[in-house]
Each structure stands twice: as structure tokens, then as C-alpha cells.
């Protein structure tokens, strides 16, 4: 909530006094980065891809990809699903369709070190409809979209929301603490959105730990990151453990989410 607030106040108040400067930064040795989100759609189909990269110097244009790791996922029944390398650091399994209430353990072997993490499928409600307003935003002239869903009552739910279009992406995480059991919306507002634009909305079920992880990550990646009223930043550790050498911890996360998707054409 504070992030939202700061965005509102300071984007208007202070943006005029910003300029880009050169800064010398220290450079940390590279670490393995694991972006492992196994996605299960409402119809049971799945997209089981994992991307491996490493960290890079902050001002580098690209991050190096990792093509030479071996990856597998083992389910709670002991069944092993191997992953194949495709390209661009992406590994793929065509046989893995995660089921609810079953543990899945990721295992990565890279440079003679073993990295592991365990996750379970998190469910999500469907995205129902989109409400469009043409007088939103600070200027009162932007197109604002609200995509509605109904939170299941009486349980703690956490969501990861994506609104994706060529005009810009909005990522956010929600915690149902304040709207348990209600119909609530994901909020999409980007500049220059116009009639005819296609927007894809994705709502992922996630657990509390990933919610907290992503909440911080989004704070650190937002345009307002590091402003005078921000929290003290620190590198966020995910849920993946280096079993061989704990000092060489990896970054990133392993999660299994059910996803609801809704495509919308701006009116």
C-alpha cells in the first residue's frame, strides 16, 4: 500500500528534478538465477519451463544464459520428470502436469553443485470480466482497466497478477487479508493505452512465501525504487538452496501456480 501511495505523491511532485548520472558501482561475482514457474491452466494443460541465467554487472546490457545445467523435477511419489535444454537458457519438460496436494522437488546440477527446492500447486479463481473507464489516472484522461475475480472465503489466498500489452506490463501481488471472500479486481493502468489494444491478464495462485518474495522484488524494480522514502534494500533470497555450498546461494524462485487468463480488447 505504501508503494502505491508514494507513487501517487512523488511521481507528480518530484519527477521534474531527476536526471541520469554516471556512478561507479562495485561488481559482485556471478550467481545462478533460477526462474522456475510451472504453470497449470484451468483446463489441466501445463507449461513446464525453467529459465537459468546468471547475475551480471548492473550496467551490462544482457544477462548471460546457462545452457549447460541438468534439471529434473521429482514428485512426491518418486516419479522423475527430466527437463531438456531448448535455447536462451530455457529448459522444458513435456511430461510434467503438476497435480494438487503433491510435493514437487526441483533439482539442478550446475558446475558440480546441486541446487534444490520444493513446491506445491497453488490454485486460483477464474477472471470474470473487465471494467473499462476512460477518465482514469492522474490526468483523468487515461484508460483504466479493472479485471474482476472472486476470492474464496475463509482461507488465506495470495495472488500474482500480470497485465501484459505492447503499451506496458503491470505486475502485482495481492494478499486477501483485506478482501477475503469478496469480488475484487486487478488494476491495469499504463500510459497511451488506446482502443483496439490487446491486453492479456493472468492471475496466478501463489503461496505466502512467494507473495512476500515478489512483493519486495516488485518494490525494488519499480521506477520509484531507492527513493528517499523507500525501505532499506537488500538482495532477496528465494526458496532455492545450494546443497553443495551454501555460501554460493542462487537467486530466483521455484513455484507451481494455477493460472487464469483473460484476453481483452480495449474498447
Amino acid at each position, binding site marked *: 500500500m505504501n508503494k502505491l501511495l508514494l507513487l501517487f505523491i512523488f511521481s507528480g511532485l518530484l519527477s521534474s528534478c531527476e536526471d541520469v548520472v554516471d556512478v561507479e558501482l562495485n561488481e559482485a561475482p556471478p550467481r545462478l538465477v533460477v526462474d522456475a514457474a510451472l504453470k497449470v491452466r484451468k483446463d489441466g494443460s501445463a507449461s513446464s519451463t525453467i529459465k537459468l541465467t546468471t547475475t551480471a554487472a548492473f550496467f551490462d546490457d544482457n544477462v548471460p544464459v546457462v545452457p549447460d545445467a541438468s534439471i529434473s523435477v521429482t514428485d512426491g511419489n518418486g516419479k522423475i520428470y527430466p527437463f531438456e535444454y531448448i535455447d536462451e537458457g530455457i529448459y522444458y519438460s513435456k511430461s510434467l502436469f503438476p497435480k494438487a496436494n503433491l510435493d514437487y522437488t526441483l533439482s539442478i546440477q550446475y558446475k558440480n553443485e546441486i541446487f534444490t527446492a520444493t513446491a506445491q500447486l497453488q490454485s486460483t479463481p477464474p477472471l470474470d470480466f473487465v471494467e473499462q473507464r476512460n477518465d482514469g489516472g492522474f490526468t483523468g484522461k487515461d484508460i483504466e482497466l479493472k479485471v474482476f475475480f472472486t476470492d474464496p472465503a475463509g482461507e488465506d489466498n495470495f495472488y500474482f497478477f500480470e497485465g501484459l500489452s505492447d503499451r506496458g506490463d503491470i505486475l502485482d501481488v495481492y494478499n486477501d487479508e483485506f478482501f477475503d471472500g469478496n469480488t475484487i479486481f486487478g488494476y491495469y493502468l499504463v500510459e497511451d493505452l488506446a482502443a483496439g489494444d490487446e491486453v492479456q491478464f493472468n492471475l496466478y495462485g501463489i503461496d505466502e512465501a512467494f507473495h512476500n518474495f515478489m512483493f519486495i522484488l516488485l518494490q525494488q524494480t519499480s521506477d520509484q525504487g531507492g527513493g528517499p522514502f523507500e525501505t532499506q534494500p537488500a538482495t532477496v533470497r528465494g526458496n532455492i538452496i545450494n546443497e553443495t555450498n551454501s555460501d554460493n*546461494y542462487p537467486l530466483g524462485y521455484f513455484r507451481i501456480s494455477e493460472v487464469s487468463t483473460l484476453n481483452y480488447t480495449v474498447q
Partner: protein
Amino acid sequence: MKNILLFSILLLGCYAFSQEKFTLSGTISEKDSGETLIGVNILIPELQTGTVTNQYGYYSITLPKGNYSVYFSSIGFATEKFTLDLSENVKKDFALKEDTESLDEVVIEADGEKLNIRNAQMSANTLSVKTIKKMPVVLGEVDVIKSITLLPGVTSAGEGASGFNVRGGAADQNLILLDEATLYNSSHLFGFFSVFNPDAIKDLTLYKGGIPARYGGRISSVLDIYQKDGNKREYHASGGIGLVASRLLLEGPIKKDTASFLVGGRSSYAHLFLPLFGNDNIAYFYDLNTKLSYNLNKNNRIFLSGYFGRDVFEIADSFANSFGNTTLNLRWNHLFSDKLFSNLSLIYSDYYYGLELKFVEFNFDSGIQNYNLKYDFTHFISNNIDLRYGLNSIYYKFNPGDVTPTTESSGINPFKLTDKYAWENAVYADAEIEVSDKISVQAGLRLSTFNRLGQDELFLYENDNPILFNEDLSIYQKAKPIDTVSFSRNTTIKSFANLEPRFSISYLLNENASIKASYNRMAQYIHLISNTTSPTPFDIYAPSGKYIEPQLADQVALGYFRNFENYSLEVETFYKEVKNRLDYVDDADLIANNAVEQILLNGEARAYGLEVLFRKNEGKFQGWIAYTLSKSEQRTPGRTSIETGINNGNWYHSPWDKTHDVSITAQYELSKKWSFGSNFIFQTGQPTTYPEGQYEFNGVVVPVYEARNSSRLTTYHHLDFSATWTPKPNSEKRWKGEWVFSIYNVYNRKNAASLSFRENSDINKNEAVRLSIFGIIPSVTYNFKF
């Protein structure tokens, strides 16, 4: 204990040898307005002794029978002298006339300064509003907080932030008192202005160390501000019209020489301040100072004063926000005898923060309320012993947040963070003793207690441990409460008690120089929950209790003080240690958090430094050079050998650590029509945390951060000028006006308030973005009086 013993012996000795003695006492005020004067020196050259008026303008001194000349002197006032034949108790109220002869030096002033170096109190600076008003300031708004940051050992929390840091302490460790009432937030418009209306203020003192026992509850400093009482003789108005804000103050007698009122208001112009926003947006602040004073009779005076301030922001129809302080206090001065002065204060104060997010249709309210009773006595025992004692009782209610939906159709459920209650009590005694011609001592002891009172739904944790360490990931995680308990309000969940000794001593080396040393222990029971560098209104106070320990500070300071002809030099060095300084685990989310104990760890802080203040107090040219060399750091080690703590348990710079801090301020009175002021500030850049790498996750670029606060922003400096033009200084008319022209940051230095790192989505490259708040800012203000 030793101090008390020493004191008792002295006290006994004093009575045993006393001859026939009488008391000279009274109240000193300003001739034209009847306004009582604080800190006026009363000197008796025959005995090489004297005293000073207290916060209520009262003085009392007990001397052997005899003939004396008595001088009353105060900077900016013509010194008055009278001859006294002391053969009985004498009550002498005196009115001093403002020294309009442009600060002619009077020989006696040097004696006034001598008394100052003789006094055991060190690490304290008093500024008169006159001095503050002469300093150039940003946007032409006279600002109390910005002017004290020009003193050594005091830095601002950041550009555009009104919070301040004293001797390496955090901004929430400052006790800010306005007419004895505690203020929780000292800034307007997110720190662009401080909440004090300069026209309503009489005097202020900042204690950085050697803090007397009558103050407690915060561990770093005390900023004690007194408002004017209101003119008891004539009706007057004063005010100013500036680019950003205007102010008006009315004062006058209700009954001549007996009762007076003061009403002061200030408001900013919304439409001018934020032209960047469209017409639908509003941002403004206002505040109101009111005071009634009534002299019931010779021995009784009553004051009723109030402060109300609010900031309001509204952005289109999506967002509304308002916050501010309210204080109301009733004080009663009573003289039990001409040697025993007392003040009873009943104070209500609250801080409110409210937020309405219209587009998600909910309201968020939070705040802190307290009721405060203070009863303070000053016992002027003899010409070399003053004894102060008293008690203080504060009842707190904390509202960490209340979420309510604003419409029937709102998707937000009502939600209440649990209210918390506490009761803080203290008793103290403090003696100021002139032990010999050369040695003065101020020794005191404060006993403070804090009871965390019953509340609803206190969380219980396994092993009473609300924060767990995940060994695999090497991170701290919130523990799940195993149960909740509710207590009735009149039970005590947890209590604390602390003895806080305070001791200062001065030794006069010669007529013009002294050395002083002090030690103080302070306890602080309420904590600002904020991991940003400056107190912003989003911050929430939390009381000590089952999971949060009170902060304890020990400070020692040593100083050398010297008067030259028209100059004075103060050199001090200090060392401070703070126990139980709370720290937040990395990336903690503090807003609307009902269980802050789950993200807090107990750490420690320390600060040390050297301060030099070279000051010219008199003449057409006045000002000072202040230099501070200091270090302020903190650490939070793991609780067990497995835990990493914060920042791997290593010491790191506190966000307000500034190695070098130079402030130069000067005022020059060219003629009666023109006077000039200038400031120069130079500081080591603020510590900050930079990225040392990046990675990609879910399509976004994420920075990898280095160890906490291991880099620094670039050096901070700026130069400011102001010129005051009084068109008709000798006008006989009631209306008196002056123009203040000022330029802040003359050479347009782009000081970095922060450096942020982000991905430029247009060119897909990471970049560092400097945020600088104030470039060169010219302004003009018209001030008037009638």
C-alpha cells in the same frame, strides 16, 4: 546514590553556615508587550554570583543581607541596573526594553557570558527567534528545524526532510516539546516546512547531551520550544506574505497587564505550490497556534495553549490524505513561596494520519493519543543551590491502523489493527550546585517506568519467539502465532523500570574559560516503526512490551568553553551507546502490519564525534562556524551462532552518518534599512546502498544489492543569501513592514537527495537516476507588524 549523598552533605553544610539571608525574586518581562523573558541574566557583581530566569520568566536568588547592585541583562535588550538594600525578602518584577540602538555592546554583557561558562550545563544551544528569522531559508519560509541543523552535532535527515538527527541519533529519538506538549511529527508537506509558526515562538533550547533529569522519554536530544504568551499591553498583529505560505498572528490584552491572548495561523496556497498537478489536485497545509495567559494574582498564573496543524493532499478523485498534530494544554504556575516555583501541566496531544483511497474505496486511519500530567518544582534554595524535582505521567493509546470501506460496494473488508495502550511514569530530582568559585555541578536522577497495558488479541508465539531464522535460506521469517490472548485495559502485560542518572560538572579555568564534562543515561519506551531514513507521516509508533525492549542510551561528553572579546568558542567531544536499537529484517513491510514484532530484531547503535562552534554574538556582524566530525553506526548480530543477524551482524553506517559537517551562518546589519544573511553548508554524502549486479526474473530486471549503507551519495553543499529591506525604519506609524529577498542554493548545486537505479524501458538499459529536490530558489516575502 553517591550524588544524592553528596548533595545532602552540601545542603546540610549550606544551612549550617547560613547567616541572615533574604530572597530577591520576581518575573522579568519585555516592556512593550509584557511578554515574560526566558534566560535573562540577573547578576550581582559584588558577590560574583547571579541567576537566570526560567521558562516562565521567574527568578529567585537568596543572598546574605547587604547592599548590592543588581543587573538584568539579555542579548537584544538594554541592560537595567538597580541598587538593592537587602534587609528583607524583596519581590522585584522588572521590564526590559528592547535595545533599539542597534545592539550596542554593554560592558556587563561579558559578565553574562561568564556565567554561561560557569554553568554546569553543556551541549545545549539556545536560539532566539530573532536569530532564526535572520537566516536565509528555502522558499523564504522561516524554519525552526532547518536553523537548528546549522548547529554542530545536528544534521537534517535529508534534503527536504524536516526531521533532524542529533549526535548520530535517529529522528524519533528527539523529544520535541511545544509549550511542554510532545509533538510526534515536526514537518509539513513531507518535510518541506516544519510545523512551528516562527511568529508564535518565543525561545527554543536544544539539549544534545548532559540532558537534565527533568526531561525523559527520548534518548538523543530535547528540543524545548516556548510559545509567546501574547501582548498584555496593546493589540498587535504581525504576519507575512510569501510565495508558498502566508501567516497572521494577533495578540493583545484581554485585561491590561493581567490577561492576554494570542492566535496565529498559517496556510499554504495549494494552487501555487503544486502547479504540476491538474486542477483537480490539492496539496496544502495549515496550522493554528492559540494561547491564553492569565495572571490570577502575584502567585498564580494560568496558561491555556493549543496547537492544531494539518496537511491535506487530494489527487483527482482517486486519493485523499490528511495528517497532523493536535495539542492542548493547561498550565498553572504557582509560587508556594518566593523560593519555591511550581508548574502543573495537563496536556493532551495526538497525531493523526488518515488516508482515503477512493479508487479502491477504503479509508485508513491511524494515530497516537496521549494524556500527560507534569508537575515540576523549582526550589531556589540559596544563591548557589537550585533544586528541581517533579513527576510526569503519560497515558498512551496507539492506533496502528483502522481500515474501513467507504462504499457499500467496496471490495475491501473492514479491518482493525489492534489498539495498544501504555502508561509511562517518572519522578526526578535534579540539583544545580555552585560547589566553589570554580566548580559547578548539576546532578540528577530520574526513575522512569513503563507499563504496557492490556489489549485485545496479543499474539503468542512458540518459545515467545516471533521471528524465526530459516537456516537453509539464511533469511528471517515471520513466526506463526500459536494463540492470541486478550487482557483487560487495567492489567499490565509487561512493565519496565529504569534509573537514569544525569551528571554535569564545570571547572572554571580562568575568567574566560572553562571545561565541562557530563554523563547521562536516557530511556525511551516508544519506537518509531519506520525503515526509511526520515520520519514520514506513514510511520507508526509502537510501544515497548512483551517483544520490544526499551532503548537505553549512555552518553559521555567533554567540552572546552571560552569567551573572547565578542566571540565564543565551544569544543565538545562525545561518545554515545544505545542498547536495544530496533532494526528491521531486510525488506520488511511495515505498513498495516499487525505484528511488527515478526520483522524486528534487537540491535545496538553507537556514535562518537567532535564538535566545534565558533560564534560571534554581538555587533553588526554576527554568526557562527560549526564543524562536526562524527561517526554513527549500528549493528544487529544474530541471536544464536547460526543466525546471520542483519548485514551479517557487522557494524554499518546509520543512514544519517555524516563524517564531516560544516555550517557557516552570518548576518550583517549594513544600515537600519538593509541587513543581509548568508548560510553555507557542506556535508559528507549520506550513506546508501547501491546495486552490485542485476538479474532477470519473470521478465523484469532485479538489482543485486551490496552490504547495507556501504556507499555514499556525493558531497552535499549549498550557499544561500538573504537580504532584508526595511523601507521606513524610523517611521512613527504603527504599520511596520519589511521585505525579505532570498536565494537558496545560489550556485544551483544539484545535491542528490537519493540515487535510484532502474531500467529505462525506452532503451532497455539500466541507469542511475539522481533525485535533487532544491535547485536555485529565489523568493520574496513581505513581513508586517502593526
